[in-house]
């Protein structure tokens, strides 16, 4: 169920050592980290690697096929696709990772509180969770982005309001199971306050599962950011974004199909690397 239970600080050290040993031996994790690393480095070094200015338009050089000068060709405004891909990666990765943080934190907190205190608090949070998941993910995200305004702010607000649900559920289950265990009773009996029990003892035990889930959530947010971009509700031009690139290319899908296809491949690559990292971490922590 959860990772290695950490009852005292002593066994925490042992748990950490075992984790790193298993982590080092996991081919999934290593491959995932390498893939992810390449991606992060490439997009971070975008200003250096890019061959052109991603915003530089050219009236005559539109829709050029891939060539030596333009590795992936140009789009309808003459902008170099390869350079745009790199900068779009920078934007999309940054936003996906940042937007994943708030729901991660709030979800864990609400899950811990819900599972630990139980009672009406648990019931209320549970109903809120049910309400949120009743809405199809894209419907509610699109509605919130619409209400707040398209662009980065809308994206952050949307995922902050909606994304915490997955963590809350997972953490709640583990917390409820641990709440009734002997060592928690011992800790409380020893005079520890609720806060201390939660922070020092329960939190380390729910973190592994939450982090594994985080990987999946980042993928989902990334896909959503790109989808919103495609729909015109995401990152606004002129900032390059894989979604808007796909949307731009749709008009030319009959002749220059790669303009829309290639950004999608980048998203898939990101998804695979994060998925491998998540699986690898899960194996190392023995989390299902």
């Amino acid at each position, binding site marked *: 169920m959860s990772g290695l239970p950490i009852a005292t600080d002593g066994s925490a050290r042992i748990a950490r050592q075992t984790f790193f040993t298993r982590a080092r031996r996991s081919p999934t994790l290593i491959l995932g980290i390498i893939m992810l690393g390449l991606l992060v480095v490439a997009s971070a070094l975008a200003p250096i690697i890019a061959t052109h200015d991603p915003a530089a338009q050219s009236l005559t050089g539109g829709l050029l096929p891939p060539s030596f000068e333009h590795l992936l060709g140009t789009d309808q405004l003459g902008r170099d696709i390869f350079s745009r891909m790199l900068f779009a990666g920078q934007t999309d990765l940054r936003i996906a990772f940042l937007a994943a943080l708030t729901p991660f934190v709030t979800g864990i907190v609400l899950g811990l509180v819900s599972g630990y205190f139980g009672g009406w608090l648990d019931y209320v949070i549970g*109903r*809120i969770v*049910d*309400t*949120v*998941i*009743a*809405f*199809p*993910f*894209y*419907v*509610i995200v*699109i*509605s*919130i982005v*619409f*209400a*707040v*305004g398209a662009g980065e702010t809308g994206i952050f*607000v949307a995922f902050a309001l909606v994304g915490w649900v997955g963590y809350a559920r997972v953490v709640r289950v583990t917390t409820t199971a641990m709440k009734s265990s002997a060592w928690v009773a011992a800790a409380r009996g020893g005079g520890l306050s609720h806060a201390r029990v939660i922070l020092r003892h329960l939190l380390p035990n729910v973190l592994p599962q939450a982090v594994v889930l985080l990987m*999946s959530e980042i*993928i989902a947010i*990334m*896909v959503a950011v*790109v*989808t919103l971009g*495609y*729909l015109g*509700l995401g990152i606004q031009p002129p900032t390059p974004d894989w979604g808007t690139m*796909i949307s731009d290319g*749709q008009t030319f*899908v*009959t002749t220059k*199909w790669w303009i*829309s*296809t290639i950004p*999608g491949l980048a*998203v*898939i*690559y*990101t*998804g*695979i690397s*994060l*998925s*491998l990292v998540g*699986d690898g971490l899960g194996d190392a922590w023995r989390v299902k």
Partner: protein
Amino acid sequence: MRPPLRWLRRTLFAVVPVVIGVVVAVFFLLRLVPGDPARMILGERATPESVAALREQLGLNKPLLQQLVDFAGTVFLHGDTGNSLIYNVSTRELIVQRAPISLALVGLAVLFSLLIAVTLAVLAARHKDGIIDHVVRVIPTIGQGMPTFWIGLLLIILFAVTLKWFPVGGIGTGPLEPLRSLVLPALAVSLGLIPPLVRSLRSELLEVFSSDFVTTLRAAGIPERRVVFGHILRNASLPTLTLLSVSVSYLIGGTLVVEQVFGINGLGSLLFGAISNRDFPVVQGVALYCALMVVLVSLVLDGLVWLLDPRTRSAS
């Protein structure tokens, strides 16, 4: 009859708060951002007079609680979230008009998902560790990062542009054309659902295949085909139904997005049109209906599982 009453009470405790929650959430959608909702709808360049008029029209001058009650009243009594600001027709009418196509799409997507997923899962489970099994196990990892709309585009490129088997977009006229137009979009949505469905079905099938009762049935000489269809599939389909009930949410959301890719005139285009026109009531209406639909379908599917599994019926 005791068990149905218990089920009913349990359902009421879970469902009614969610319905209330959904209505409240949709109500507050308009008020997510601090500031005057009317100004937000009309935009920066709106005149004070038009803003005041809209405030009056939307009842924004009443106390907040009153507005909430009025809103809930409209929803429960008229099935409506007010009139469209653009078309001046009730949102319910607009939704009812556009819903059938979207529902058809969802239905077709479910059909494709089940057909493809069951076939793949059975093949993978029967030939465990074979090529098909390995391929099937890798698909979820790759598929997780595939945007559904992009899959739709890919299908267009492949089947509409290159192979010309299906139209590129829109709904055709004539006897078969509409159905043909829905194939690619439905396929795009279903491809998102298939990987988790196959993964779950395969693992369920494997568990059931190796379970003792299958050996008992085989040992008793019951023909393989009957064992598979009369017993194995039924046992494996129960958790799948549960998974399906969870996937309804994805199906509806994915359909709305995919409609944009293929230029289909369903709820999706209604939603996005409303977004371009700042038509808040319609956006609220679509969101509300989608959520209620998800709740309804989950309820029905859970009831179906309850009916099919004798263990839940006599459970305390």
